[in-house]
């Protein structure tokens, strides 16, 4: 903007209306006209509410009624309460799940991007869960894991004895794994499709050349596919990691966060809506944002370092 006005001003000493009518002025006007709608939307629905939330985090307040300014007290509470930060430990389960999810997605994507019989049907089946509403998935899995229902029945067909099977949601040593399973089931298809898309964009001549040079499938994967889909891969990793920090739907719908499955988001929801401690919940949200921010930067640095060594 400033560069534009300067260049316009230096041409002639024009008045403001004259400048508006000139080519430069019209260009600026058009730019503003196009930008104003998305910017207003972005401001009104993202940044202003966010600023409000940051403001709330310094108050002791409910949704209705009086507010009291308490400074950093809410932030101190976030760090001193067991349930707020303890809930982040559960994210490790979800991060573990995202590793499984990404490797599975990458493996299947690689296979499916070569010529496979019925490839599209497989793609369709595996992508399908992503199209189902998260709440519906919650209800499906609630019954799936119920004692003696779907999962147990299937396992009994395979020869397991019902008495030797654990209670999938009751047993605290595995209930989080059960929940992570639902999230892997839902998202790996989507990751897979993204990977396939990226792999498709690889020039097929590269494979031919590699074959002529005597490279096998694994070498093709390592030296052609992997470097070509680096961007998408990093993006998927970042999305899954921040997704695991903010896991919400499976524990909220299936177990209501009870029995040691309350993730950070579920605890935040409980504090904001049941306990009505809006200030504290806002502070939790801000802290989580900071954590995601830091984790993302760390990942960026990590990948920059790793890929630099690995491929060049």
């Amino acid at each position, binding site marked *: 903007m400033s560069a534009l006005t300067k260049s316009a001003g230096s041409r002639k000493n024009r008045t403001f*209306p004259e400048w508006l009518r000139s080519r430069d002025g019209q260009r600026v006007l058009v730019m503003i006209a196009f930008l104003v709608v998305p910017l207003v939307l972005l401001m009104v629905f993202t940044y202003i509410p966010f600023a409000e939330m940051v403001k709330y985090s310094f108050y002791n307040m*409910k949704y*209705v*009624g009086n507010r009291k300014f308490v400074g950093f007290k809410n932030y101190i509470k976030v760090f001193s309460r067991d349930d707020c930060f303890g809930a982040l430990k559960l994210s490790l389960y979800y991060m573990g799940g995202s590793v499984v999810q990404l490797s599975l997605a990458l493996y299947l994507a690689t296979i499916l991007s070569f010529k496979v019989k019925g490839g599209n049907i497989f793609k369709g089946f595996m992508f399908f869960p992503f199209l189902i509403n998260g709440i519906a998935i919650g209800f499906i899995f609630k019954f799936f894991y119920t004692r003696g229902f779907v999962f147990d029945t299937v396992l009994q067909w395979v020869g397991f004895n019902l008495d030797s099977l654990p209670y999938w949601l009751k047993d605290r040593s595995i209930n989080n794994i059960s929940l992570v399973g639902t999230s892997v089931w839902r998202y790996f298809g989507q990751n897979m499709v993204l990977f396939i898309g990226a792999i498709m964009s690889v020039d097929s001549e590269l494979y031919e050349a590699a074959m002529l040079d005597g490279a096998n499938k694994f070498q093709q994967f390592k030296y052609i596919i992997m470097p070509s889909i680096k961007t998408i891969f990093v993006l998927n990793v970042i999305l899954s990691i921040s997704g695991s920090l903010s896991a919400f739907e499976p524990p909220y719908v299936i177990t209501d966060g*009870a029995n040691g499955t309350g993730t950070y988001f579920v605890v935040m929801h409980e504090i904001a809506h049941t306990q*009505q401690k809006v200030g504290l919940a806002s502070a939790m949200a801000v802290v989580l944002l900071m954590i995601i921010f830091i984790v993302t930067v760390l990942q960026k640095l990590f990948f920059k370092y790793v890929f630099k060594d690995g491929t060049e």
Partner: protein
Amino acid sequence: MKFRKVLAICLASAMTLSVAACGQAAPAAPEASDSEEAETEEAAEEVEEEEAEEEPAEEAEAAEAAEAAEGGVPTYTQLDLSKYGDTEATIKFLHHKTDRAEDGTMDKMVAEFNKEFPNITVEMEAVTDYAEDSLLRLSTGDWGDIMFIPAVDKVDLETYFMPIDSLENLSAELNFVDSWEYNGQCYGIPYMANAQGVLYNKAVFEEAGIAELPKTPTEFLEDLQLIKDKTDAIPLYTNYAAGWTMGAWDAYVGIVSNGDDTYVNQKFVHTAEPFKDPGDDTGIYNLYRILYDAVANGLIEDDYTTTDWESCKGMLNRGEIGTMVLGSWAYAQMQEAGDTPENVGYMPFPMTVGGTQYVSAGGDYNYCINVNSDDTNKLASLIFVKWMVEKSNWCFNEGGYTVVKGGDNPDMYSAFDGCEVLSDKPAKAGEETLLNDVNAESELSFNAGGNAKVQRIVEAAATGSESLDDIYADWTQVWNDAQEELEVSVDY
């Protein structure tokens, strides 16, 4: 020049909008928008003129409104339904009874209402997640004329709702109206009242050889054991997974647990050790002990984490469940859920204080009226509320304890003969929000969505991770911390 013109048009339209916003000054709007295309000075002049014209008109309107208000909205007890048959208005009613909206009960009642008041149109909106959504709606102000009071602080009542009548007048005619009283004015009237007892299946009790209903926690646990030994039914169904069904245990704190109707709203927050064992099978200690011991002795469902609220209704009806600890509102639903409604029974909570079994009864959600509605709508809303309370029979049909003094009670309450039915007294003046504050600060949230703390009892008992005394010690700790934080005096 162009810039000034733009500015003038902006100002002109801003003025137009503000003029148009003043009630029925609407006819001015089209003229004013024409003027936007006119020349600058003209536009400005015209708007000025319009404003000058509007002022007297507005004054006149305001005077008219004041006159109307002088007749004013009568109070609930003053209102004589027979005199207002020709009232004309459109009112909106926000409620949580999604099931009754779906099965047509709400529409039927409104149709009945319209026979007597044909010119009052009632629009209804049923909200699924009422406890949370209603609060959000309330804070935006966009909710209509009548709603059920959500969990607001009593000091805020007058900001949102119209006082319906004084407590003195209202309590002469209706029960349970003191729960939303503030400075002597009532802001809400319950649509029905619930008594707090225990649901049980009569056939299961018979099969287990239980001739007399249990009267103490110890007897109750023995009976549960009998059910387990002699029948295939689940003795006590916790409904752990639904969450709120666990919070339902809180309803027995106070009147049921110690026979004191001033306990919950007046003494609880001032008690140093509310969770201490009084040693005579009463008190909050023994209330949750029932749950802990039942879980520890395997007297509940096998996998509590996958319980399902909808299917438990049929299970109780069919005799697959022995007992469930829920308010009387659930009775009708249990009866409707299967082929043997005659087996569904309701008994007082098994706790006897000083030889008497106490029953706590209280209003369910309360009707309230928007303080910001205009007088016509306020009047129509009050008519609707009064009609719903006194003439709709809704309370009786839902199996509720009667709200109108001397009204009929459904048969289900026959087991309550000989019990003392009390309702919680309101908090002392100046301490209206104290329980809410201590509840929120301690996060135990008694009777306010504190489901997690009751779920914790089940988890602890099932896994053996904590003893009941550990849990109570922890609760006492957070309770005392909250008292300290909020500077609440500890008197008991």
